[in-house]
């Protein structure tokens, strides 16, 4: 009887009977090729282990968190992908080989009609999945429950949730609450009234990825929350409106930072928008801050995301010990919106546009 090795950085089939004893206590069988796989992946695997006597726990109690948010472990077990779904190259061991061997950063892919048709379809799926996930947002719902919805909605469309095991990311969506800038990991923390939460959806279908995100209010938002969220939303809209052939990618940052500053907010510099298509992340890079030096100029057929992360306080970020969760260094709120767009002959086409029925949406500033 063979199993898939539970090490997220292995993913090979094995007939080994080596099992994690702590998982067994939770009535789960996690098989490993050998002690080497077990030891190497221990840090990635132990996140699933519960602690006796508590519902959830902070895995890094000695870490100096910048805000009040804490991770709530254990993480649920890796969700299954049915065998018939086409997986990206990193699904088994976390290494996106095709991205790593892709060409120079100055080569920006231009997609043909056939490719664009596939990109549009998967972008459409992305929108549907995001809307389905956003629909369950309310106080008391955990981000892990949102992850489950995202995962199931994705699989239902014969698609793969791109974040899952990308560089060993453990879940199918990024959920970023309050001071989390991006790449928050869904866990057992229930959403609270007054939170803001960003859902960042990425999908892989028929060889193409899609990527979009929105920030939502949970219950009744504070004035500060409305300012940072609406500013982020407007920043993205303004940047998108400027897109057409001949525009330098770096100029988008000027537009975004100008609007953020005008509203007393700052722009995160560590994370960028990116090209997307056959690869989850590729050229161009799109920095969101002013006077950046992102190379390249827009041409018809290019597909990329713009995803400004706007902070209520200072732009600086720090990373949690999980090596994923990016939070504001001052612990203040951060909001983000992301669309994927296609450059056309005379402008752009929004591939991940909201529908009339989409949950969330702009709230008037008072």
């Amino acid at each position, binding site marked *: 009887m063979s199993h898939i090795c539970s090490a997220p950085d292995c993913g090979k089939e094995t007939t080994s009977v080596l099992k994690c004893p702590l998982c067994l206590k939770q009535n789960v069988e996690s098989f490993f090729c050998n002690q080497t796989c077990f030891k190497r992946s221990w840090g990635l695997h132990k996140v699933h282990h519960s602690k006796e006597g508590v519902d959830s726990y902070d895995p890094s109690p000695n870490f100096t968190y910048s805000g009040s948010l804490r991770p709530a472990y254990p993480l649920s077990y890796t969700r299954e992908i049915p065998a018939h779904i086409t997986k990206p190259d990193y699904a088994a061991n976390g290494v996106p080989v095709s991205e790593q061997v892709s060409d120079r950063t100055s080569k920006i892919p231009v997609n043909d009609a056939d490719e664009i048709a596939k990109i549009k379809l998967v972008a459409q799926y992305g929108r549907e999945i995001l809307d389905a996930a956003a629909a369950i947002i309310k106080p008391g719902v955990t981000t892990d429950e949102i992850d489950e919805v995202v995962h199931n909605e994705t699989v239902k469309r014969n698609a793969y949730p791109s974040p899952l095991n990308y560089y060993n990311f453990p879940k199918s969506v990024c959920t970023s609450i309050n001071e989390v800038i991006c790449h928050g990991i869904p866990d057992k923390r229930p959403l609270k009234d007054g939170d803001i939460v960003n859902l960042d959806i990425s999908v892989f279908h028929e060889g193409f990825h899609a990527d979009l995100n929105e920030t939502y209010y949970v219950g009744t938002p504070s004035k500060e929350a409305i300012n940072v969220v609406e500013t982020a939303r407007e920043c993205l809209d303004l940047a998108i409106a400027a897109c057409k052939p001949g525009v330098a990618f770096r100029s988008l940052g000027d537009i975004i930072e100008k609007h953020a500053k005008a509203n007393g907010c700052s722009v995160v510099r560590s994370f960028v928008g990116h090209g997307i298509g056959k690869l989850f992340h590729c050229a161009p890079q799109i920095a969101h801050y002013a006077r950046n*030096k992102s*190379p390249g*100029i827009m041409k018809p057929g290019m597909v990329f995301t713009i995803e400004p992360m706007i902070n209520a306080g200072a732009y600086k970020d720090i990373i949690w010990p999980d090596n994923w969760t990016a939070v504001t260094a001052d612990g203040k709120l951060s909001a983000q919106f992301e669309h994927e767009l296609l450059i056309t002959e005379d402008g752009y086409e929004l591939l991940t546009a909201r529908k009339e029925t989409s949950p969330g949406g702009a709230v008037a500033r008072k």
Partner: protein
Amino acid sequence: MSVTSLQDAQDVIGWIKSNNGHFNTDLLEIRPSPLGGIGVFAKQDIQLTEDMPPPVLLRLHKDSLLSSQKSCVANLLYESQITGALALVIAFIYELELKELSPWWGFIKSIKYIDDKGHPILPPSAWSKNEKDLFQGSEIEMQGYLSVSELLESYEKACLFAVRHSLESKGMISTPDILAIQTPQDEDIVDGKFQQFIAISHALASRNFEIDAFHEVALVPGADLFNHTNEPSVRFESVYEVCEACGAFEGGCEHVMISDYEDDEDNSCQDACCGGEEHEQEHEQESEDDDDENMDIEEDEEELIHFEGTMEEFITHIEQEIQEEIEENRMEDLEEEASLEAAKKSGINIELYSPEIKDIDGKIIHPNACVDITLTRSVSKGEEIFNTYGELSNVVLLNKYGFVIEQNEFDTVSLGDAFGKLRRFRKGLFRAHFKWWEERGYDLVKRYLQEIASDEEEEDEENDCNDGCCSDGDEDSDNRHGHDHQEDGCCGGDEPHSHGHDGEQEQDEDEEDEENSWDSNLDLLSTSEPNAICLALLRLLTLHKVQLIQFVKRGEELIPWLLKPGFKNPAMSRRMQRIWRDVLSFRLQEYEYCDFKDVSIEDLEDVRDDRLQFIKSIVGHEYKILERALDRASIM
């Protein structure tokens, strides 16, 4: 020499600061140079000490350099497969067109390619016909620097690039004026644009630095403020081996070059960045530097673990190891802090030797991701601080940098054509000599010289001459270090400089193609002595026919004899003198003008006075070198 104005230079310093770069304004000031233009001067004495690394005068993150890879047209250049110096020129023209909208504007505007009178600043190849005629027979002509065809080809490529991308985008990508050629268009307008293109190419050629495998060549704000000398006091440093896909310093990205990946199919290492031979080394360093990121996956898969005990004990064991590692890292951090603290207490200015520069996120940038200008010898207060662009003759200096050094020690006069004449005119005498030289001798001599050179290089490395030994103004420092420098004992062109100004290397490659012809590399040095190859050929020609037959039989073993020193002493044989005089005379006959005493600017139409001065200087020096050689060959 530098054509940047003082105000523009100050703006460049401002640009460096606002782009998180480091220009040590405590030690340096910019002011007019006695050589013309502006230069960089020491505000105070700066001492090099043996136990400290050389002070860093300028440090810039590579991301802030202006390269074709970083420009707004990077992707278009990639599509058009334009690389190297031309890619940089085109990128510059597009950035220039954007003015204040370019993130490099504060730097770009300091680059003057138009002179005060509104004329483009041009290399000799673009001078008037009459001006070029004055160079006839000189090294500028011999080495092909009067031809404008290469520039024309580049300009055509650049215009095609602009037109293509404008048409493809239905005009949405606008064409910079300099590259916008309409049909029909007034010839003068086209010519004016071409001249501007040449002037820009010329200005950039004098300022571009070879950076690394990704950026290729780039403009380095601030580094180009240092004037050139054959005895420099700084050098330009840049780590060449970086990821070819994105330019990140080793481990700074996840790119794998395809070749690497194929070599190592099962490599599960996430950060197998960058290429080639450096691979192994990088990984060793990586695991030291970047543990935090790669801890989980950096294990060697070959090494299977066999833990004796229960799985629970194994987990305890793993957890213990993790804790130990955390503790180790903590101790290392503490130690580093302590040593920094100690250094501070002892009065060492860390900032001087390794200035911390931060990226746009406020994170400290690894020095290897930066380019530096570092001091290579002590300088005193008020002294101008020079870089070197290489061991360059005036021909190259004028062509590339637009200036000359009087009596430049690296000037040479090529004698290949003159020997060719000798071969034709003295067929009866030398047929067999030249035949052997062409078929065997030239290659044997060249190979022998290369072997000697590589041996010396090894010795040089052991001697490590980076301490600025030979050129610190100490007049008789020449031979104290026991390594053999040519003539003046200047090590200005030492290895690190090959990372400096780029074009020399390209030129080296060009020369490589022609180097296999029998008449190449036959040079008269600025000391009026023949170079080694030239001496070997001369000595060969002194052999009588019978001697030659014996010589050819013994062949290779006699090569050292051909090359043995002693051109001056013991004195040349009469036979050698006669041959030498013939060669030198043939060479002198090539010059249209070699003496400008009787030539005045009034006699010359369409010749600019400043250019005439350059022509006089270059041709005059060559003439002097030849005359002196001829004099010496006639003494006995």
